[in-house]
């Protein structure tokens, strides 16, 4: 099908974009990479009255670092640029590892970091990575800008804490700490498809290989990225063992996740996938933590 009519603006500065967003509010949708919005418009699932195209805003497209320990991404940075960045590969390896799972090369050439996060699909990779990495998001309106922590940002299916007058402008993600291992794994029917289940694991060990901090965030196993805190807490103060990993995998897959099931994966199958993925991810993350 074809999209319904809309009024199109391509602002040449962020200031102008914010002014238009303030003027139109809910009526105006931000057009970033368009890789989720345009399919929805082609199906007429969405019929926004106004589109604000941010593609001319070079000021929102950058990859930089702060104090040598925090990654800063402009909202309009394309996914393929993140994929090819060597600093990210080295210091924010979880993000690097998750990127190739997002759709296909042609879609990553166009899709943006801000769009993937603002869209807040529970099956999307970046919201899960952002939460696992304790990221924060800067949103801006004509009244100024403020930060929102990833814990407070994702509110459910396609819902975030971004207000109708605001635009997501920047994402800050801390580098991995020393002695930290990571893993991103998922299962999908074909490469590039949205996953049936996935996990991001981040584990920090002390010098005796005792777990100091652990984070397990699940993809497509709730209506938003699911932070399995109780399961992760079982790891803290412990050393790696098969029994421990099994206990965490069972707790997470049986008690903490809230899978919805779909045509391609029943709830039981999703729980099964979560258990297997948790075991694999923890082994990988522990191993990497010991090497760093």
């Amino acid at each position: 099908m074809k999209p319904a009519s809309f009024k199109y603006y391509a602002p040449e500065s962020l200031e102008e974009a914010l002014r238009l967003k303030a003027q139109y509010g809910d009526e105006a949708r931000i057009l970033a990479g368009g890789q989720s919005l345009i399919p929805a418009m082609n199906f007429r699932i969405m019929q926004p009255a106004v589109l604000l195209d941010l593609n001319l805003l070079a000021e929102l497209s950058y990859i930089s670092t702060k104090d040598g320990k925090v990654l800063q991404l402009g909202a309009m940075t394309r996914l393929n640029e993140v994929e090819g960045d060597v600093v990210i590969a080295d210091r924010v390896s979880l993000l690097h590892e998750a990127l190739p799972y997002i759709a296909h090369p042609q879609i990553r050439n166009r899709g943006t970091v801000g769009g993937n996060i603002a869209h807040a699909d529970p099956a999307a990779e970046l919201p899960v990575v952002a939460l696992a990495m304790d990221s924060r998001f800067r949103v801006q309106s004509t009244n100024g800008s403020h930060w929102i922590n990833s814990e407070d940002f994702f509110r459910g299916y396609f819902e975030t804490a971004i207000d109708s007058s605001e635009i997501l402008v920047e994402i800050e993600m801390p580098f991995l700490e020393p002695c930290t291992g990571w893993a991103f794994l998922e299962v999908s029917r074909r490469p590039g498809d949205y996953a049936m289940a996935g996990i991001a694991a981040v584990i920090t060990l002390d010098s005796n290989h005792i777990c100091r901090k652990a984070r397990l965030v699940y993809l497509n196993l709730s209506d938003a990225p699911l932070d399995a805190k109780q399961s992760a807490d079982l790891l803290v103060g412990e050393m790696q063992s098969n029994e421990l990993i099994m206990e965490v995998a069972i707790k997470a897959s049986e008690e903490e996740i809230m899978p919805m099931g779909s045509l391609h994966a029943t709830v039981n199958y999703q729980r099964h996938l979560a258990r297997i993925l948790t075991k694999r991810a923890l082994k990988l993350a522990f191993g990497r933590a010991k090497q760093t």
Partner: protein
Amino acid sequence: MSDNHSINTTINGEDYTSDVEARMLLSDFIRHELGLTGTHVGCEHGVCGACTVILNGRSVRSCLMFAVQAHGQQITTVEGMSASENDLHPLQESFREAHGLQCGFCTPGILMSLIPFLEENPRPSEEEIRAAISGNLCRCTGYQHIVAAVKLYVERDS
């Protein structure tokens, strides 16, 4: 409530000035306004890859862009691959020889995905070739001959 815009685009080296409605997809603009019907449309939601074109050197879905967004941009479609209508690009030659197509519906999108990929990675492994075309559906070939065609091209190119 139509919202029209005047755009200038360069497609296959030729400059075009056109008046387009904001809601016109780039794929429809290329096919219906410019008559370049080599770019195919299968699904219109980014899944099949048939509509892939090259935008400023990178392959993108033309069904997931509005024509108005192509203002000031450089686009290559399958018609722009070879020197003339009667020539084939060496990659097209390889596809013909290795039976890299049957009905040909997916072929323009696959070629438009492979051109930038092979420029960046002229000696790809089979795994890399498969990843590069993972976003292009082919209902005929089973992909084996497509991969073989790319390998043939790489072999000849080196």
